[in-house]
């Protein structure tokens, strides 16, 4: 039997000298090509989970197997190699506001470029072509030389997607990609992620706040509460009772259309 693409085994993260447990022995696995949505309240450990996968946050305990390699045991140098295959987009977009759009997109390529050349800021013309093509793909070709602080929130997140595309990722981690955006823009961003998932076969792990978005785009949903798995299954199987269990008794479902 082939092993799953990504296996999380007993993942635990403790912050602040043992005071805060963000993740408590989390275990699950994902097959290649899935669109996994992680839901849960703020502080339930969603961001920590995503950042443990590419080790932006160092896990306290547990193992993470990506395509057969245990990423928790890699040296810093080999971890950088693995990170090239893992794209990431962020809630606050994490772009350099003062730089141009195309500059920001090109930083997605840094993992592939030797140190001395990137130090001079020299990107190959091929990389530049790819950057422009990726901007074309997210509909921002005409904004390539505009500064990022001139763009709207939705446009910024599309720049973030183009930057992740530069890595030609196998897997994409999306940390609340639409939390800072309005509902209409949210759908457009989610559709780009869906397109990456279906057309390029990129495995997507996205944390979301709205259950309606999770149902619409996810092929599978997991829910976290206090760092533990409280639900794992296809979107349809989350009913009202499950919803209350995840979000608490007083929660009311909000629809994003």
């Amino acid at each position, binding site marked *: 039997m082939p092993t799953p693409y990504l296996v999380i085994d007993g993942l635990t993260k403790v*912050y602040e*000298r*043992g*005071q*805060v*447990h*963000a993740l408590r022995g989390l275990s699950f696995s994902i097959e290649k090509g899935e669109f996994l949505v992680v839901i849960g309240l703020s*502080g339930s*450990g969603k961001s920590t989970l995503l950042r443990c996968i*590419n080790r*932006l946050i160092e896990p306290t305990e547990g193992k993470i197997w990506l395509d057969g390699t245990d990423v928790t045991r890699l040296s810093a140098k080999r971890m*950088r*190699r*693995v*990170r*090239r295959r*893992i*794209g*990431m987009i*962020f809630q*606050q*977009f*994490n*772009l*350099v*506001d*003062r*730089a141009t759009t195309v*500059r920001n997109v090109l*930083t*997605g*390529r*840094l*993992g*592939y*470029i030797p*140190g001395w050349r*990137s*130090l001079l*800021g020299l990107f190959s013309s091929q990389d530049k072509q790819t950057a422009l093509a990726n901007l074309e793909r997210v509909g921002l070709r005409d904004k390539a030389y505009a500064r990022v602080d001139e763009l709207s929130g939705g446009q910024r997140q599309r720049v*973030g997607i183009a*930057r992740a595309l*530069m*890595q030609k990722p196998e897997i994409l*981690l999306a940390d609340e990609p639409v939390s800072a955006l309005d509902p209409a823009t949210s759908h457009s961003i989610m559709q780009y992620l869906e397109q990456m998932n279906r057309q390029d076969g990129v495995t997507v792990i996205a944390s979301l706040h709205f259950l309606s978005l999770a149902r619409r785009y996810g092929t599978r949903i997991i829910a976290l509460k*206090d*760092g533990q798995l409280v639900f794992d299954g296809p979107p349809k199987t989350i009913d009202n009772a499950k919803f209350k269990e995840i979000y608490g008794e007083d929660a009311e479902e909000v629809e994003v259309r």
Partner: protein
Amino acid sequence: MSPTPGGAGAPRDRLKVLSRRAFSFLLDWMAWGYVAYCVMYLLNYYWYTVHVDWWGTLTLPSWGWPVVILATLELAVWCRSLGRSLGQRAIGVALRPVAGERISVGRRVLRGFLWHLSVPLAPVWIARGEEPLHDRLTQVGLRTETPDPERPGRRAILTQWGFVSLFLGALTMCVGWLIIGINLQVLIRRAPQAGRIWGEMLRPDFRYFTAPDPVFHLRALSYSILDLTVVTVFMALVATVLGGVMAFPLSFLGARNVMGFSPAGWATYGVIRGFFNVFRSIETIIWASIFAIWVGYGTVLAGILALTIHTIAALGKLYSEQVEGVSPGPLEAVWAAGGSRIQVVRHAVIPQVLPSFWAFTLYRWDINVRMATVIALVGGGGIGDMLFYYKNQGDWSKVGAVVMVIVAVVWAMDYISGRLRERIA
């Protein structure tokens, strides 16, 4: 994310609370010590200058100072027990009963006496993990004060703490005035002499603005005011460029968010920051007097070296504070894309800080021009050489001319660099 009950950090937290208490106690002790010092000074002043030989000497005998120190310690202890403590107030705590509303005066006095027993026994109750003995026996404790939203506070100045601050401030002013011992009457008395100098300076002699002054020479060469002005501006420029170029790489080594990942990183950070702070606190004029002896009195090189050293430290500190203030998001993005530390700095930090680096550098050039006009006083070269030469000759009309040129140059630099900084920001 819920805190674990009990918690492994509890003893550590208790020590933290105790050290805060010790700090607030020290504040009280120091406040009373300060009052005692001021009172002693005032008494001394009174007896020595007003009532000479009335009571002989007020100098304390050898056992006097320990007595004063112990007396202020006692004052601090009793104030803290009786509930009027600046130190407790400063860390936002107050003495409160464990149960009930008020603490009787008797219990407060008892606590004051028990304090003397409790402090020598501190190792015992700390080791046992108990509350301080004097608190436990009188059933009180220091609790964090939260303002009552129902009862808005009076205006700060009208509270008893306002009066205490006002009293300390007034005392400081009185004693300070006596300590520096200045006499403002000379300003009036010697006004005629000053008037002559002002008059000459306001009739400036621009004869040697472009033509070299045959009387003034440096190493057998004569210079005009304009010559030395140009030299001064370029001294400042060279020092700023050299200093900026050297401060640039150092500033990343002195930034916590770039270095603080490993013990070696922390060590580098500490060394670099220490270097910045020490070298910055030694003023340019002191550096100039050192370099004047090293490379030659009155040479331009001495001035440039002095300005450069101070510029490295000053710009380095400003730069690294900018680096520490960058938004962490882009850094995270470059790490996530598989970037190395050097790539994070190059592609996430530098684009964020470069505009403010330029602004600070321009500002520094402006400062360096101003500094360069005076370092000649200690042998740093530049226009100051001329200024101090004419001053020593008593040729105030020429001094006036040089000063006016300096004012014009500094004003122009200030204006230009201000406009450029506006454009950048």
